[in-house]
Protein backbone atom coordinates (compact mmCIF):
# COMPACT_ATOMS: atom_id res chain seq x y z
CA UNK A 1 0.00 0.00 0.00
CA UNK A 2 2.90 2.35 0.51
CA UNK A 3 3.26 3.06 -3.21
CA UNK A 4 -0.33 4.27 -3.26
CA UNK A 5 0.68 7.43 -1.40
CA UNK A 6 2.76 8.45 -4.41
CA UNK A 7 -0.31 8.23 -6.60
CA UNK A 8 -2.38 10.64 -4.62
CA UNK A 9 -1.99 13.48 -7.04
CA UNK A 10 -4.80 15.07 -8.92
CA UNK A 11 -6.06 13.16 -11.95
CA UNK A 12 -8.30 16.02 -13.04
CA UNK A 13 -6.77 18.89 -14.94
CA UNK A 14 -8.55 22.20 -14.38
CA UNK A 15 -9.39 24.25 -17.44
CA UNK A 16 -10.72 27.79 -16.89
CA UNK A 17 -11.66 29.97 -19.84
CA UNK A 18 -12.17 33.75 -19.77
CA UNK A 19 -15.32 33.54 -21.87
CA UNK A 20 -17.04 31.39 -19.25
CA UNK A 21 -15.88 32.66 -15.85
CA UNK A 22 -18.70 30.88 -14.05
CA UNK A 23 -17.63 27.48 -15.37
CA UNK A 24 -14.86 25.13 -14.32
CA UNK A 25 -13.97 22.31 -16.64
CA UNK A 26 -12.15 19.32 -15.21
CA UNK A 27 -10.42 17.16 -17.75
CA UNK A 28 -9.97 13.62 -16.51
CA UNK A 29 -6.44 12.47 -17.35
CA UNK A 30 -6.77 8.86 -16.25
CA UNK A 31 -8.15 6.10 -18.50
CA UNK A 32 -10.22 4.64 -15.67
CA UNK A 33 -12.62 5.88 -13.10
CA UNK A 34 -11.87 3.29 -10.39
CA UNK A 35 -11.20 -0.39 -11.35
CA UNK A 36 -8.47 -0.93 -8.77
CA UNK A 37 -8.30 -0.13 -5.05
CA UNK A 38 -5.82 2.69 -5.63
CA UNK A 39 -8.04 4.18 -8.32
CA UNK A 40 -11.09 3.97 -6.07
CA UNK A 41 -9.35 6.11 -3.47
CA UNK A 42 -8.03 8.51 -6.11
CA UNK A 43 -11.38 8.84 -7.84
CA UNK A 44 -13.13 9.65 -4.60
CA UNK A 45 -10.46 12.08 -3.44
CA UNK A 46 -10.33 13.86 -6.77
CA UNK A 47 -14.07 14.14 -7.13
CA UNK A 48 -14.25 15.53 -3.60
CA UNK A 49 -11.62 18.11 -4.51
CA UNK A 50 -13.75 19.09 -7.51
CA UNK A 51 -16.81 19.42 -5.31
CA UNK A 52 -15.03 21.36 -2.54
CA UNK A 53 -13.49 23.77 -5.02
CA UNK A 54 -16.77 24.39 -6.83
CA UNK A 55 -18.64 24.94 -3.60
CA UNK A 56 -16.06 27.21 -2.01
CA UNK A 57 -15.84 29.46 -5.08
CA UNK A 58 -18.91 31.65 -5.22
CA UNK A 59 -18.34 32.54 -8.87
CA UNK A 60 -18.56 28.92 -9.99
CA UNK A 61 -21.99 27.98 -11.19
CA UNK A 62 -21.22 25.14 -13.55
CA UNK A 63 -18.84 22.22 -13.32
CA UNK A 64 -18.01 20.18 -16.40
CA UNK A 65 -16.33 16.82 -16.11
CA UNK A 66 -14.60 16.16 -19.40
CA UNK A 67 -14.20 12.41 -19.64
CA UNK A 68 -12.84 12.21 -23.17
CA UNK A 69 -9.62 10.60 -21.98
CA UNK A 70 -11.40 8.19 -19.72
CA UNK A 71 -12.27 4.97 -21.50
CA UNK A 72 -13.85 3.05 -18.68
CA UNK A 73 -15.85 3.61 -15.54
CA UNK A 74 -16.85 0.76 -13.31
CA UNK A 75 -19.91 0.51 -11.03
CA UNK A 76 -17.96 1.94 -8.09
CA UNK A 77 -16.98 4.91 -10.25
CA UNK A 78 -20.57 5.44 -11.32
CA UNK A 79 -21.64 5.66 -7.69
CA UNK A 80 -18.83 8.07 -6.83
CA UNK A 81 -19.80 10.27 -9.79
CA UNK A 82 -23.41 10.12 -8.67
CA UNK A 83 -22.39 11.08 -5.16
CA UNK A 84 -20.36 14.08 -6.37
CA UNK A 85 -23.22 15.17 -8.64
CA UNK A 86 -25.60 15.11 -5.74
CA UNK A 87 -23.24 17.17 -3.59
CA UNK A 88 -22.92 19.80 -6.32
CA UNK A 89 -26.65 19.91 -6.91
CA UNK A 90 -27.32 20.26 -3.19
CA UNK A 91 -24.94 23.22 -3.13
CA UNK A 92 -26.75 24.84 -6.05
CA UNK A 93 -24.12 24.13 -8.70
CA UNK A 94 -24.82 22.55 -12.07
CA UNK A 95 -22.90 19.45 -13.04
CA UNK A 96 -22.23 18.39 -16.62
CA UNK A 97 -20.48 15.40 -18.11
CA UNK A 98 -18.94 15.39 -21.54
CA UNK A 99 -17.70 12.33 -23.33
CA UNK A 100 -17.21 12.38 -27.08
CA UNK A 101 -17.19 8.66 -27.78
CA UNK A 102 -20.22 6.49 -27.03
CA UNK A 103 -19.73 4.81 -23.68
CA UNK A 104 -22.18 2.53 -21.93
CA UNK A 105 -20.98 3.56 -18.51
CA UNK A 106 -21.21 7.31 -19.01
CA UNK A 107 -24.45 6.99 -20.96
CA UNK A 108 -25.83 5.18 -17.95
CA UNK A 109 -24.99 7.89 -15.48
CA UNK A 110 -26.23 10.61 -17.77
CA UNK A 111 -29.46 8.85 -18.62
CA UNK A 112 -30.22 7.71 -15.10
CA UNK A 113 -28.96 10.75 -13.27
CA UNK A 114 -29.99 13.59 -15.51
CA UNK A 115 -31.08 15.61 -12.51
CA UNK A 116 -27.47 15.49 -11.31
CA UNK A 117 -25.25 15.34 -14.36
CA UNK A 118 -26.33 16.67 -17.73
CA UNK A 119 -24.70 15.75 -20.96
CA UNK A 120 -23.00 18.64 -22.64
CA UNK A 121 -21.48 19.26 -26.01
CA UNK A 122 -19.51 22.03 -24.39
CA UNK A 123 -16.25 23.20 -25.83
CA UNK A 124 -14.08 25.66 -23.99
CA UNK A 125 -16.66 26.12 -21.30
CA UNK A 126 -19.62 27.11 -23.44
CA UNK A 127 -22.27 24.87 -22.02
CA UNK A 128 -24.84 23.59 -24.46
CA UNK A 129 -26.91 20.82 -23.12
CA UNK A 130 -27.73 18.27 -25.78
CA UNK A 131 -31.13 16.73 -26.18
CA UNK A 132 -31.28 13.35 -24.60
CA UNK A 133 -33.82 10.62 -24.33
CA UNK A 134 -35.95 10.27 -21.19
CA UNK A 135 -34.20 8.88 -18.14
CA UNK A 136 -33.82 5.12 -18.27
CA UNK A 137 -35.75 3.55 -15.44
CA UNK A 138 -35.03 -0.08 -16.15
CA UNK A 139 -31.68 -1.62 -16.84
CA UNK A 140 -31.29 -3.31 -20.19
CA UNK A 141 -29.50 -6.48 -21.12
CA UNK A 142 -25.76 -6.03 -21.12
CA UNK A 143 -25.94 -2.46 -19.92
CA UNK A 144 -24.63 -0.99 -16.74
CA UNK A 145 -27.14 -1.05 -13.94
CA UNK A 146 -27.74 1.88 -11.66
CA UNK A 147 -30.67 2.01 -9.35
CA UNK A 148 -31.72 3.08 -5.92
CA UNK A 149 -33.40 0.75 -3.47
CA UNK A 150 -35.64 2.90 -1.38
CA UNK A 151 -37.63 0.21 0.29
CA UNK A 152 -35.81 -2.63 1.98
CA UNK A 153 -38.81 -4.88 1.44
CA UNK A 154 -38.28 -4.66 -2.31
CA UNK A 155 -34.57 -5.44 -2.09
CA UNK A 156 -34.80 -9.20 -2.75
CA UNK A 157 -37.12 -8.70 -5.68
CA UNK A 158 -34.91 -6.01 -7.22
CA UNK A 159 -31.81 -8.15 -6.86
CA UNK A 160 -33.70 -11.05 -8.40
CA UNK A 161 -34.56 -8.93 -11.43
CA UNK A 162 -30.91 -7.98 -11.89
CA UNK A 163 -29.90 -11.61 -11.52
CA UNK A 164 -32.23 -12.52 -14.38
CA UNK A 165 -30.57 -9.89 -16.54
CA UNK A 166 -27.11 -11.16 -15.67
CA UNK A 167 -28.19 -14.73 -16.30
CA UNK A 168 -29.50 -13.87 -19.75
CA UNK A 169 -26.72 -11.51 -20.71
CA UNK A 170 -23.91 -13.61 -19.34
CA UNK A 171 -25.08 -17.07 -20.15
CA UNK A 172 -23.89 -17.75 -16.60
CA UNK A 173 -24.53 -20.90 -14.63
CA UNK A 174 -27.63 -20.59 -12.40
CA UNK A 175 -25.56 -21.53 -9.34
CA UNK A 176 -23.06 -18.75 -9.98
CA UNK A 177 -25.83 -16.23 -10.44
CA UNK A 178 -27.50 -17.41 -7.24
CA UNK A 179 -24.18 -16.94 -5.43
CA UNK A 180 -23.98 -13.39 -6.78
CA UNK A 181 -27.56 -12.71 -5.64
CA UNK A 182 -26.70 -13.96 -2.17
CA UNK A 183 -23.62 -11.75 -1.95
CA UNK A 184 -25.25 -8.53 -3.04
CA UNK A 185 -28.19 -9.27 -0.72
CA UNK A 186 -25.71 -9.65 2.15
CA UNK A 187 -24.24 -6.24 1.31
CA UNK A 188 -27.62 -4.55 0.95
CA UNK A 189 -29.05 -6.11 4.12
CA UNK A 190 -25.98 -5.13 6.07
CA UNK A 191 -26.38 -1.60 4.78
CA UNK A 192 -30.04 -1.34 5.71
CA UNK A 193 -29.47 -2.85 9.15
CA UNK A 194 -26.24 -1.24 10.23
CA UNK A 195 -25.97 1.83 8.07
CA UNK A 196 -29.40 2.78 9.32
CA UNK A 197 -29.93 4.14 5.85
CA UNK A 198 -33.31 4.59 4.26
CA UNK A 199 -31.96 4.40 0.76
CA UNK A 200 -29.08 2.72 -0.97
CA UNK A 201 -27.78 3.02 -4.49
CA UNK A 202 -26.61 -0.06 -6.27
CA UNK A 203 -24.71 -0.29 -9.51
CA UNK A 204 -23.54 -3.29 -11.47
CA UNK A 205 -22.00 -4.42 -14.67
CA UNK A 206 -21.24 -7.75 -16.26
CA UNK A 207 -17.97 -8.03 -18.16
CA UNK A 208 -18.88 -10.61 -20.74
CA UNK A 209 -15.38 -11.47 -21.88
CA UNK A 210 -13.94 -12.15 -18.46
CA UNK A 211 -17.14 -13.51 -16.93
CA UNK A 212 -16.88 -11.07 -14.06
CA UNK A 213 -19.75 -9.24 -12.37
CA UNK A 214 -18.89 -6.05 -10.59
CA UNK A 215 -21.35 -4.67 -8.08
CA UNK A 216 -21.24 -1.60 -5.93
CA UNK A 217 -23.53 -0.23 -3.23
CA UNK A 218 -23.40 3.10 -1.48
CA UNK A 219 -25.40 4.41 1.43
CA UNK A 220 -25.35 7.68 3.30
CA UNK A 221 -26.18 6.32 6.71
CA UNK A 222 -23.96 5.82 9.72
CA UNK A 223 -20.56 4.62 8.58
CA UNK A 224 -18.98 1.29 9.55
CA UNK A 225 -16.33 2.95 11.79
CA UNK A 226 -19.04 4.91 13.60
CA UNK A 227 -21.31 1.89 14.04
CA UNK A 228 -18.60 -0.50 15.25
CA UNK A 229 -16.69 1.95 17.44
CA UNK A 230 -18.38 1.06 20.75
CA UNK A 231 -17.82 -2.64 20.23
CA UNK A 232 -14.18 -2.02 19.27
CA UNK A 233 -13.71 0.04 22.41
CA UNK A 234 -15.29 -2.71 24.49
CA UNK A 235 -12.83 -5.22 23.05
CA UNK A 236 -9.83 -2.87 23.22
CA UNK A 237 -9.58 -2.73 19.43
CA UNK A 238 -9.92 0.98 18.70
CA UNK A 239 -7.79 2.20 15.82
CA UNK A 240 -7.99 4.09 12.57
CA UNK A 241 -11.16 3.98 10.50
CA UNK A 242 -9.55 1.32 8.31
CA UNK A 243 -8.72 -0.74 11.41
CA UNK A 244 -12.34 -0.44 12.48
CA UNK A 245 -13.61 -1.66 9.09
CA UNK A 246 -11.19 -4.59 9.24
CA UNK A 247 -12.41 -5.32 12.78
CA UNK A 248 -16.05 -5.26 11.56
CA UNK A 249 -15.10 -7.89 8.95
CA UNK A 250 -13.93 -10.38 11.59
CA UNK A 251 -16.02 -13.39 12.43
CA UNK A 252 -18.43 -12.83 15.29
CA UNK A 253 -17.92 -9.08 15.46
CA UNK A 254 -21.18 -7.20 15.51
CA UNK A 255 -22.30 -3.74 16.46
CA UNK A 256 -25.11 -5.37 18.46
CA UNK A 257 -27.52 -2.79 17.07
CA UNK A 258 -29.68 -5.58 15.68
CA UNK A 259 -30.52 -8.26 18.23
CA UNK A 260 -30.31 -11.24 15.88
CA UNK A 261 -27.04 -10.17 14.34
CA UNK A 262 -24.16 -12.62 14.55
CA UNK A 263 -21.40 -10.77 12.78
CA UNK A 264 -21.44 -13.21 9.90
CA UNK A 265 -22.63 -11.14 6.93
CA UNK A 266 -19.36 -9.47 5.98
CA UNK A 267 -17.44 -12.63 6.87
CA UNK A 268 -19.57 -14.65 4.45
CA UNK A 269 -18.80 -12.14 1.75
CA UNK A 270 -15.09 -12.27 2.40
CA UNK A 271 -15.14 -16.06 2.36
CA UNK A 272 -16.97 -16.22 -0.93
CA UNK A 273 -14.70 -13.61 -2.45
CA UNK A 274 -11.78 -15.81 -1.43
CA UNK A 275 -13.30 -18.95 -2.90
CA UNK A 276 -14.50 -17.18 -6.01
CA UNK A 277 -11.24 -15.42 -6.76
CA UNK A 278 -12.90 -12.03 -6.71
CA UNK A 279 -12.26 -9.00 -4.58
CA UNK A 280 -14.08 -6.60 -2.30
CA UNK A 281 -13.37 -2.98 -1.43
CA UNK A 282 -14.99 -1.09 1.41
CA UNK A 283 -14.69 2.67 1.72
CA UNK A 284 -16.38 4.10 4.79
CA UNK A 285 -15.82 7.47 6.48
CA UNK A 286 -12.02 7.83 6.35
CA UNK A 287 -11.15 4.18 6.07
CA UNK A 288 -10.48 1.78 3.23
CA UNK A 289 -10.33 -2.01 3.35
CA UNK A 290 -9.60 -4.36 0.49
CA UNK A 291 -9.83 -8.14 0.28
CA UNK A 292 -8.87 -10.48 -2.51
CA UNK A 293 -8.10 -14.17 -2.72
CA UNK A 294 -4.63 -13.86 -1.32
CA UNK A 295 -4.66 -10.93 1.07
CA UNK A 296 -6.50 -8.31 3.04
CA UNK A 297 -5.20 -4.82 3.46
CA UNK A 298 -6.26 -1.48 4.80
CA UNK A 299 -5.46 2.11 4.07
CA UNK A 300 -6.15 5.24 6.01
CA UNK A 301 -4.99 8.31 4.11
CA UNK A 302 -3.59 11.13 6.22
CA UNK A 303 -5.99 13.68 7.63
CA UNK A 304 -9.56 13.19 6.57
CA UNK A 305 -8.96 13.04 2.86
CA UNK A 306 -11.52 10.33 2.19
CA UNK A 307 -14.34 11.57 4.40
CA UNK A 308 -17.15 9.66 2.79
CA UNK A 309 -20.25 10.31 4.85
CA UNK A 310 -21.51 6.83 4.17
CA UNK A 311 -20.22 3.50 2.96
CA UNK A 312 -19.27 2.29 -0.50
CA UNK A 313 -18.80 -1.43 -1.03
CA UNK A 314 -17.47 -2.71 -4.36
CA UNK A 315 -17.58 -6.41 -5.12
CA UNK A 316 -15.95 -8.10 -8.05
CA UNK A 317 -17.07 -11.68 -8.63
CA UNK A 318 -16.54 -14.33 -11.23
CA UNK A 319 -19.80 -15.83 -12.38
CA UNK A 320 -18.41 -18.48 -14.70
Amino acid at each position, binding site marked *: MSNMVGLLQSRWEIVRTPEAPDTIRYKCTTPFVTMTPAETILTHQNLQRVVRRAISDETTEKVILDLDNCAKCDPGGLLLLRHAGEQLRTAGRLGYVTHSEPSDSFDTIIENQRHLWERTAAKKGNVKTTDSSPAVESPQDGKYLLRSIEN*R*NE*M*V*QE*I*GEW*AEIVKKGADAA*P*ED*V*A*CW*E*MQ*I*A*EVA*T*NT*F*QHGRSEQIWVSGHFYKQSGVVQLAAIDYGATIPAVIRDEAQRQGRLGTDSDLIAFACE*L*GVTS*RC*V*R*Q*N*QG*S*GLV*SLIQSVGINGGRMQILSRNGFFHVNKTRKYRKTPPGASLSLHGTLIILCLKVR
Partner: protein
Amino acid sequence: MNEFGGNVMSNNIRAIDRVGSGFPPDEGERLAETLISDNRLNWDALDIDLRGCPAGLLISAFFNAFLQKIHEDASEHFEQAKAIKWQTDFPFQEKNVAEWIARFKPQATA
Protein backbone atom coordinates in the same frame (compact mmCIF):
# COMPACT_ATOMS: atom_id res chain seq x y z
CA MET B 1 -57.14 -33.81 13.07
CA ASN B 2 -57.29 -35.57 9.73
CA GLU B 3 -60.32 -37.11 8.12
CA PHE B 4 -59.63 -40.36 9.93
CA GLY B 5 -59.59 -38.67 13.28
CA GLY B 6 -55.83 -38.94 13.72
CA ASN B 7 -53.24 -36.23 14.10
CA VAL B 8 -51.61 -35.02 10.92
CA MET B 9 -48.04 -34.56 12.03
CA SER B 10 -45.99 -32.87 9.41
CA ASN B 11 -42.23 -32.61 9.26
CA ASN B 12 -41.82 -31.61 5.62
CA ILE B 13 -42.26 -27.90 5.05
CA ARG B 14 -42.11 -25.98 1.81
CA ALA B 15 -40.70 -22.59 2.79
CA ILE B 16 -41.98 -20.89 -0.34
CA ASP B 17 -45.54 -21.44 0.93
CA ARG B 18 -44.74 -19.63 4.17
CA VAL B 19 -42.44 -16.76 3.33
CA GLY B 20 -42.49 -13.92 0.84
CA SER B 21 -39.69 -11.94 -0.76
CA GLY B 22 -39.46 -9.14 1.78
CA PHE B 23 -36.48 -8.07 3.87
CA PRO B 24 -34.55 -11.28 4.70
CA PRO B 25 -34.47 -10.89 8.52
CA ASP B 26 -38.22 -10.18 8.53
CA GLU B 27 -38.90 -13.22 6.39
CA GLY B 28 -36.72 -15.39 8.63
CA GLU B 29 -38.79 -14.30 11.61
CA ARG B 30 -41.95 -14.93 9.65
CA LEU B 31 -40.89 -18.50 8.88
CA ALA B 32 -40.21 -19.05 12.57
CA GLU B 33 -43.61 -17.64 13.50
CA THR B 34 -45.44 -19.92 11.08
CA LEU B 35 -43.66 -22.94 12.53
CA ILE B 36 -44.28 -21.90 16.13
CA SER B 37 -47.96 -21.37 15.47
CA ASP B 38 -48.36 -24.62 13.55
CA ASN B 39 -49.67 -27.09 16.10
CA ARG B 40 -49.53 -29.94 13.57
CA LEU B 41 -45.82 -29.64 13.27
CA ASN B 42 -43.53 -32.46 14.26
CA TRP B 43 -40.38 -30.68 15.38
CA ASP B 44 -38.35 -33.85 15.35
CA ALA B 45 -36.48 -34.47 12.13
CA LEU B 46 -37.96 -31.36 10.57
CA ASP B 47 -37.18 -30.94 6.91
CA ILE B 48 -37.56 -27.52 5.30
CA ASP B 49 -37.45 -27.23 1.55
CA LEU B 50 -36.03 -23.86 0.51
CA ARG B 51 -36.02 -24.68 -3.19
CA GLY B 52 -37.66 -22.00 -5.26
CA CYS B 53 -37.01 -19.25 -2.69
CA PRO B 54 -35.11 -16.26 -4.12
CA ALA B 55 -31.36 -16.66 -3.66
CA GLY B 56 -31.21 -13.10 -2.33
CA LEU B 57 -33.45 -14.13 0.55
CA LEU B 58 -31.29 -17.01 1.74
CA ILE B 59 -28.57 -15.02 3.45
CA SER B 60 -27.09 -15.16 6.93
CA ALA B 61 -29.54 -12.59 8.29
CA PHE B 62 -32.51 -14.77 7.30
CA PHE B 63 -31.28 -17.76 9.29
CA ASN B 64 -30.04 -15.70 12.22
CA ALA B 65 -33.43 -14.02 12.52
CA PHE B 66 -35.17 -17.40 12.22
CA LEU B 67 -33.16 -18.97 15.04
CA GLN B 68 -33.32 -15.88 17.23
CA LYS B 69 -37.12 -15.85 16.94
CA ILE B 70 -37.35 -19.54 17.85
CA HIS B 71 -35.06 -18.90 20.80
CA GLU B 72 -37.18 -15.99 22.01
CA ASP B 73 -40.67 -17.40 21.43
CA ALA B 74 -40.26 -21.18 21.56
CA SER B 75 -36.98 -21.91 23.27
CA GLU B 76 -38.10 -25.49 23.94
CA HIS B 77 -37.72 -26.11 20.20
CA PHE B 78 -34.43 -24.28 19.77
CA GLU B 79 -32.21 -27.37 19.60
CA GLN B 80 -34.66 -29.06 17.24
CA ALA B 81 -34.61 -25.94 15.07
CA LYS B 82 -30.82 -26.06 14.90
CA ALA B 83 -31.10 -29.67 13.68
CA ILE B 84 -33.51 -28.86 10.85
CA LYS B 85 -32.52 -30.34 7.52
CA TRP B 86 -32.62 -27.64 4.87
CA GLN B 87 -33.02 -28.49 1.22
CA THR B 88 -31.63 -25.92 -1.16
CA ASP B 89 -31.36 -25.38 -4.88
CA PHE B 90 -27.56 -25.36 -4.87
CA PRO B 91 -24.82 -27.06 -2.82
CA PHE B 92 -23.15 -23.76 -1.84
CA GLN B 93 -26.38 -22.67 -0.16
CA GLU B 94 -26.56 -25.87 1.86
CA LYS B 95 -22.98 -25.38 2.98
CA ASN B 96 -23.62 -21.73 3.92
CA VAL B 97 -26.76 -22.58 5.89
CA ALA B 98 -24.94 -25.30 7.80
CA GLU B 99 -22.14 -22.86 8.71
CA TRP B 100 -24.46 -20.04 9.77
CA ILE B 101 -26.55 -22.36 11.93
CA ALA B 102 -23.53 -23.95 13.54
CA ARG B 103 -22.14 -20.52 14.40
CA PHE B 104 -25.38 -19.06 15.71
CA LYS B 105 -25.39 -17.90 19.31
CA PRO B 106 -28.68 -16.51 20.63
CA GLN B 107 -28.61 -12.90 21.76
CA ALA B 108 -30.12 -11.95 25.06
CA THR B 109 -33.28 -9.90 24.73
CA ALA B 110 -33.63 -6.61 26.54
